[in-house]
């Protein structure tokens, strides 16, 4: 649960929720961008490193490529869990409050 001080008004609560939503959204976007751009930079500037063979048929590049796809899945999972648990609950509470008035 996202908890709010009981004294705050509905608009303060919405502002807090808004800030929390963007904090999560921007951090996760940044995480995806950093992972992917790092991968692209390795492709651009560290070709020999990515050519390193880990096992027969498996280069570091291919392994990292698969991991980037898994990372995308994982970050989406993190967001969906946060949104389902915290964001939706807080939003529903705000809606109830405004309906009650």
């Amino acid at each position, binding site marked *: 649960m996202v908890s709010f001080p009981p004294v705050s008004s509905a608009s303060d609560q919405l502002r807090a929720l808004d800030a929390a939503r963007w904090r999560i959204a921007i951090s996760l976007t940044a995480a995806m961008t950093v992972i992917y751009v790092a991968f*692209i930079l390795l492709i651009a500037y560290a070709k020999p490193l990515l050519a390193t063979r880990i096992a027969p048929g498996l280069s570091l*590049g291919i392994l990292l490529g698969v991991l980037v796809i898994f990372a995308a899945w994982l970050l989406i999972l993190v967001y969906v869990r946060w949104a389902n648990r915290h964001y939706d609950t807080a939003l529903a509470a705000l809606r109830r409050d405004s309906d009650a008035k």
Partner: protein
Amino acid sequence: MNGASQPNIVAMGGFVLFIGLSLVITWMAARRTKSTEHFFAAGRTITGTQNGLALAGDYMSAASFLGIAGLVSLSGFDGLIYSIGFLVGWPVVMFLIAEPLRNLGKYTFTDVVAFRLKQTPVRVASAFGGLAVVAFYLIAQMVGAGNLIRLLFGLPYETAVIIVGVVMLAYVLFGGMLATTWVQIVKAVLLLGGAFMLAMLVLLRFSMNPLALFDAAAQRYGEAVLAPGRLVSDPLDAISLGIALMFGTAGLPHILMRFYTVPDAKTARVSVSVATAAIGAFYLLTFILGFGAMVLVGQDAIRAVDAGGNMAAPLLAEVVGGQAFLGFIAAVAFATILAVVAGLTLAGAAALSHDIWVSVVRGGHATEREQFVLARASTVLLAIASIVLGIAFKGQNVAYMVGLAFAIAASANFPALILSIFWRGFTTRGAQFSMIVGTVSSLLLIYLSPAIQIDILKAESAWFPLRNPGLITIPLSFAVGIVVSLVSPEPEAARRFSEVEQRIHFGD
């Protein structure tokens, strides 16, 4: 290998059978949705899973199936850059775009940009950018479809492209309204199923071990195929392509449109999860299809059929599953192209007839009949343009072509969309300039790039060194949007931003 010269009756029969079957399924499904709800109103009752599959269907175009498999088969690891780049755009859509888009808009992403700005200038600029994206996406589909028909029926490429263009035109004109969500769902399932079967048939020959397959590729064509190489020899080229792929998804008009078919923001969230799962799984399969074609078909045989490598997956189907399977895979690929082209053409026709003609030329007043005629005329216009361009871009890889469409989308639409959601100070002029500069600069740099100058116009050198313009045009479009907004403040737009802040969470 019988290649393009020897059309095979089994493959042709399989092709016609599966195309017919998929059209019947689509038609029945579409008819059922029609009888239960109004066709367009049914839009907002699509479930999250259905919409997720439809998104995946829209996204996995000829580029993904034919283009990436081809690039991997010819260039090895370098082709995988597209697989990965096409996927990482989805988390960006999820975190930044999907829910605000659903809550702020009505029918298109332009609604969101125009929400607190002046409607007409924003709509014109966005139609302009939208059409450019649609055009490049269409060219890629035409090149893919033309090659496919040539391979299957042994026709010259140019004839094949004209036939494909006419078939698609007929499909969109007469069945356009059926070509909605269900087309994409049927297609997404077919494509995932077909790719999975193909991958399994390949792996059967390598004791179900992908590494054994990759190793076989390395032994035949050298260890280099497992590492970055020729395709991204210029580091800046790699970065430019990567950025365009990542941010392009969030600017594709036909993808963004799909978020309005679901009832609320939470369903939009479910849609993206399902879409990302399906698309990611599909792109993991392209690793196997690409290297499978490299080993089992061979690079020379693939290049002999199409210089761009686009026929790698169908040729692989022929090797591992025979003529009937080739027919099936070709049908799946063709259905994929038809569905994507139908969606693109309708989106383009809507931009031409609704945003440009009705809003601007007629000042918002046009009869129902006039709009109907115009939408069809725009469709014909787009079909002719795509046939001409499809012939001009012969031999280009379709994944590369779609990469260009992504660069335009990321430059023309993405910055304006983000700034309109995030920034109070964004103005009508800022949006207008950002979208127009984004579109024009990316078109211009594509024209000056080696792909057009050297490959198509046969010039000695190209003025602009990068094959994908994203690295320059995306930051440029952001900068123009911000600077122009700062010098042309719009108090009314800033005042109405609090409405945006409210609706981002609560919807309407």
